[in-house]
C-alpha cells in the first residue's frame, strides 16, 4: 500500500524564503525560450479550471509576429465556492506580478493587466501600492514592462477569457467566437497570454525552484500542487494547498464531517461526486478537474436545492448571447421546478438531460457548455431527490 496521496504543500503562500524580486532578476538573465521550455517541462496546467498547458500557451504567443503583445492575469474569480485567488491576491500579490513579468519577458510583451473581480475592489488600494513599487523596481532592472489593474463590474461571464477582453475594451462582456484564440488575437486583437492568478504564482515558484521539484509532485496528467477552496459541510473550511492526484475519498477523509453524501468538485460548473464514487474518482485532469472549489454536502442537504441554486445562478449569469445557454439555463431551471411540482412527469428529466447534452455541444463558450456537468451528475445520482 502506497502512502496516503493527500499531501499538504506550502508553495504558494510561503513567503519567507521566496524573494520574488530576486527570482525575477535571475530569470531576466535567462533566455526566453529556455524559460518557456522550463514551464512546458514542469507540466504546469492552467489553474483556472480548463487546464490548458501554460508553457504551450506562452510558446504560441511568443511565436506570433506582433510588435504588441499582452499578459493578462485573470483575477475575475467568480466560480461559486472558489475563494482561493482572493487569498493569494491578499497575501502574496508580488508572486503574481513577478509571474506576469516573467511571462512578459518570455513572450515579448511590454504591458500586463490584472483583471480584478469587481467584488474584490476592496483589495485595489493595497494592490496598487505594491504595484507602483513593482513597476518601478522592474524598470530599474532594465526590463520595459508595466502592469496595471482593470476592475470588472460583477459579471460571472467576464471570467471567460474572451468576454474578459471585451470587458477590458469597454464593451459588453460577451464571449467571442473561437478561433482565433487569445494567443493569436486577444486583448485589442493582439496576441495575449491570459493566465489564472494561481498559475502565475506557480510560474514564480517554478522559476525559483526549477521545473523538477514541481514536476515531481502530482501525477502524470496533473503535475504539481493546487490551492483548494474547501467549503460546505466541513469542520475546517478554508484554503488548502494540496498535491494533485488524491481521490475524493482521501479528500473527504481529511475534510468531511463524517456524513458527507456528495462533493461538488469544481464549483457550480463542476461535477457532483456521490459517495459511491468517492474511492474511484481522482481529483485532477485524469479524473475530475477543478479550479479549486470543493463543496461538501452531508445527508441533511437537499440535492434538489443545490441544483436549483446552481441553475438560478446560471440563468442569471449567462451572458444571454447564444441560444443554448440563454434559453437552456431557463428551461433547466423551470424544468426541474415543474417536475418537483408534478407539473411535468419524472421522464421530463430525461428531456432535460438531453437538453443539457445539447448545451454542452452547442453553446458558444465554456459557461453554457459546463452547465451539463452539475445538471447531469446531480440528476443521475440523486434522481429521487429531484422528483419527490
Amino acid at each position, binding site marked *: 500500500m502506497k502512502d496516503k496521496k493527500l499531501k499538504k504543500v506550502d508553495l504558494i503562500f510561503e513567503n519567507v524564503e521566496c524573494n520574488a524580486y530576486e527570482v525575477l532578476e535571475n530569470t531576466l538573465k535567462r533566455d526566453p525560450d529556455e524559460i518557456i521550455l522550463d514551464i512546458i517541462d514542469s507540466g504546469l496546467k492552467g489553474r483556472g479550471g480548463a487546464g490548458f498547458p501554460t508553457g504551450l500557451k506562452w510558446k504560441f504567443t511568443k511565436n506570433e509576429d506582433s510588435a504588441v503583445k499582452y499578459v493578462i492575469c485573470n483575477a475575475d474569480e467568480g466560480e461559486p465556492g472558489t475563494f482561493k485567488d482572493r487569498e493569494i491576491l491578499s497575501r502574496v500579490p508580488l508572486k503574481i506580478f513577478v509571474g506576469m513579468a516573467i511571462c512578459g519577458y518570455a513572450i515579448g510583451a511590454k504591458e500586463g493587466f490584472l483583471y480584478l473581480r469587481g467584488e474584490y475592489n476592496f483589495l485595489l488600494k493595497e494592490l496598487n501600492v505594491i504595484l507602483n513599487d513593482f513597476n518601478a523596481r522592474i524598470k530599474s532592472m532594465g526590463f520595459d514592462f508595466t502592469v496595471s489593474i482593470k476592475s470588472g463590474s460583477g459579471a460571472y461571464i467576464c471570467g471567460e477569457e474572451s468576454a474578459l477582453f471585451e470587458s477590458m475594451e469597454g464593451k459588453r462582456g460577451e464571449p467571442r467566437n473561437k478561433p482565433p484564440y487569445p494567443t493569436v488575437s486577444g486583448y485589442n486583437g493582439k496576441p495575449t497570454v491570459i493566465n489564472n492568478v494561481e498559475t502565475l504564482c506557480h510560474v514564480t515558484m517554478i522559476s525559483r525552484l526549477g521545473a523538477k521539484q514541481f514536476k515531481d509532485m502530482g501525477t502524470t496528467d496533473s503535475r504539481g500542487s493546487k490551492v483548494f477552496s474547501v467549503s460546505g459541510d466541513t469542520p475546517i473550511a478554508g484554503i488548502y494547498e494540496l498535491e494533485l492526484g488524491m481521490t475524493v475519498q482521501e479528500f473527504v477523509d481529511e475534510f468531511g464531517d463524517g456524513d458527507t453524501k456528495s462533493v461538488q468538485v469544481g464549483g457550480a460548473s463542476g461535477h457532483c461526486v456521490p459517495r459511491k464514487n468517492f474511492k474511484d474518482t481522482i481529483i485532477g485532469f485524469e479524473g475530475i478537474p477543478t479550479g479549486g472549489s470543493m463543496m461538501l454536502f452531508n445527508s441533511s442537504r437537499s440535492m434538489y436545492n443545490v441544483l436549483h441554486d446552481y441553475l438560478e445562478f446560471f440563468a442569471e449569469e449567462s451572458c444571454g448571447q447564444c441560444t443554448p445557454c440563454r434559453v437552456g*439555463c431557463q*428551461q433547466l431551471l423551470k424544468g426541474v421546478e415543474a417536475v418537483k411540482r408534478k407539473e411535468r412527469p419524472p421522464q421530463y428529466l430525461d428531456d432535460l438531460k438531453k437538453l443539457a447534452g445539447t448545451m454542452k455541444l452547442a453553446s*458558444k463558450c465554456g459557461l453554457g457548455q459546463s452547465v451539463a456537468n452539475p445538471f447531469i451528475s446531480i440528476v443521475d445520482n440523486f434522481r429521487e431527490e429531484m422528483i419527490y
Partner: protein
Amino acid sequence: MSEYLVNLKINDMSVSVPEGTTILDAARKLNFKIPTLCHHPDISVAGNCRVCVVEQKGARTLVASCATPVSEGMEIFTNSMKVRDARKNVIELLLSEHNADCTKCFKNGNCELQELASEYRVGDHVFIDLVKTSGVHTIDISSPAIQKDDSKCVRCQRCVRTCHEIQHVSALAVVGKGEHQRISTFLNKPMNEVVCTNCGQCINRCPTGALSERSYLDEVWDAINDETKHVIVQTAPAVRVALAEPLGFDPGNRVTHKMVSALKHIGFDSVLDTDFTADLTIMEEGTELLTRLKKVLVDGDTSVKLPMTTSCSPGWVKFIEHTYPSLLDNVSTCKSPQQMFGALAKTYYAQKKGLKAQDIVSVSIMPCTAKKYEADRPEMRDSGYKDVDYVLTTRELAMMIKQAGIDFESLPDMEYDRIMGDSTGAGVIFGATGGVMEAALRTAYEIVTGREVPFKNLDILPVRGFEGIREATVKIEGCTPEWNFLEGAELKCAIAHGLENAYQLMKAVYEGTAHYHFIEIMACPGGCLGGGGQPIPTNQEIRAKRAQAIYDEDKGLPIRKSHENPEVQQLYKEFLGQPLGHKSHTLLHTHYKGRQRY
C-alpha cells in the same frame, strides 16, 4: 481573401476553398445547405444562434459553421445525428421564448424561424413556454414607423448589428444578461424618444416579426370604402422595381403599369406618381443649389452654407438632426418628393379637380418606413391639413394586393392618372443611390449652359454604383450670360448611402477636410431601392437587380430630364410661378430641428 487554398472534406466530399472561408460558405460551394438564423450577409458574423452548428471530426463540441474558418484537413459533417439532434433542440429552445402567434403575424409565411420550425417539424410545446411564464412583454407602438414586439424576439442581434454597423445609429442595443437579456433602447425609452431614424433597416434583417412597420392597412381600406372620400395614391420610384418580389416574381422585375392597374382595382380614386414631385424636387433643389452657389461665390454671403446636401431621405434628415445639428443649414430646405406631393395634393390638385381638401385622403406607397414618420412631422401640414395621411410600405401594398384577391400576373398594364402622374427618367432614378445627383446634374447643367450634360445618353456613370462614398466632378463650360460666374468652375459632388457612410462623409465636412458643393445622401444601402419598407429578404445581389431595373426604366422613358416634365412646367405656369417662388416657399420647403444624441 487569401490566395492560399485550404483542402477539407464536407460530408465526405472534398473541396478546396481560399484560406479564411467559413465552413458555411465552403458547404454552400458544395450545395450543402446549413440552416442559419443570426447570420446575414450584410453584417458581421455573430455566431450566437447556434442553428448552424456542424460536427467537426475530433472536436470536443459542435462548431458554428458561420463563425468558424476552414482549416487544412478538416472533416465536417453537416447532417450527422449529433448535429440534427442539437439543431432541433436549439430550434425548440428558440420557439420556447418566441411568441408563436403566427396567424396574426405580419411575417407569417416569410419568417425564418417559422421556416426552420416547419423544416424540423418542431412544435412549440416541447419545452416550457417562457413567453407565457415570464411574459411582461409589451409591444412598443410609440413610433409611427417601427413597431417592436419583444415577445417575438429571438435575440439574434441582427437588428443591433444593422443599426450599429450599417447605420451608425445604435438606437437598438443588447441590455441585461441571461434570462433578462433583451434588445432595447437607451434607458429603455420608447422608440419614438430615442436616436432611431426610422430607416427600418432592422426590420429588413429581423428574421421574425419582432420588428415590423406600423401598419396603416386598415385605415387605408376604411378610407377606400368611405364614399365621401376621394382617395389618391402616389407611388415612389423604388416600389415599382421591388413590388413583384413578394408577389412571387424574381428580383429585378419592373411592374410599374401592373402596379397602377392593381391600385385601380383596389379602388383608389386616382393613381399618381411620386416621380412627378421627384422632378419637381429637382427644379426646386437644383435652383436652390445654383442660388446658394451664386450667393456664396458672387455675393460673398457667409450665411449661406455649402456643401448643400439633399433632403429627400427622412432617415437621413433625422440622422443629421441628431448627429450634426450644427450642419442643418447645409441641408436643402426642399421637402421630400412625398411631402411635396402631399402639400400639392390638398391644394393644387384639389383646386384643379374641384375638390375640397378635407375630402381628400392622400396615401403614399413607399419603399421606406421613415416616410411614415416624416408624414407625421408637425412641419408637414402646410396645406392646412395633414399633407400625407397614410404611408404604406411596398410590403404592405403587396399584402393589400393579396387581400384584394388580385392575380397580379394577369393584370393589364395601365397608365398613371392625371394630373400629377407624369414622370421622367430623372424622377425614376431617385430610387437608386446617386439618382438624385444624376437627375439634378442633368437639369442644373442645362439651366446653366443651355446644353445637355456631357455624358453619353445622359447616363452620368461616375455617380452610379454601390461604393459607399462616391465622388464626381463636373466641369461647367459655356455658361449662358446669366450664369457666367460659374464659367470654368468644377462642381464637386459626393454621394453616400447607408448612414455609416453618410456619417463618415459628414464627419469630413464637419471637420473641414472635405470640400464639396453638393452631396447626395440616402439613409439606406443602395438608396430607396434598399429601403426599410422594401420586400424581405434583402442582400447586395437583390439590391443590384433592383438598381438595374431602375436604370432600365429610366432608359425606356421618352423624357429623361426633370425640367422637361410637361406637368411640372404646367404646375409652375398655373400655380407656383417659379422655383423658389413664394408659393414654393410655403408649400414645398421646410426647416429642421436639432436633436440630441440619444
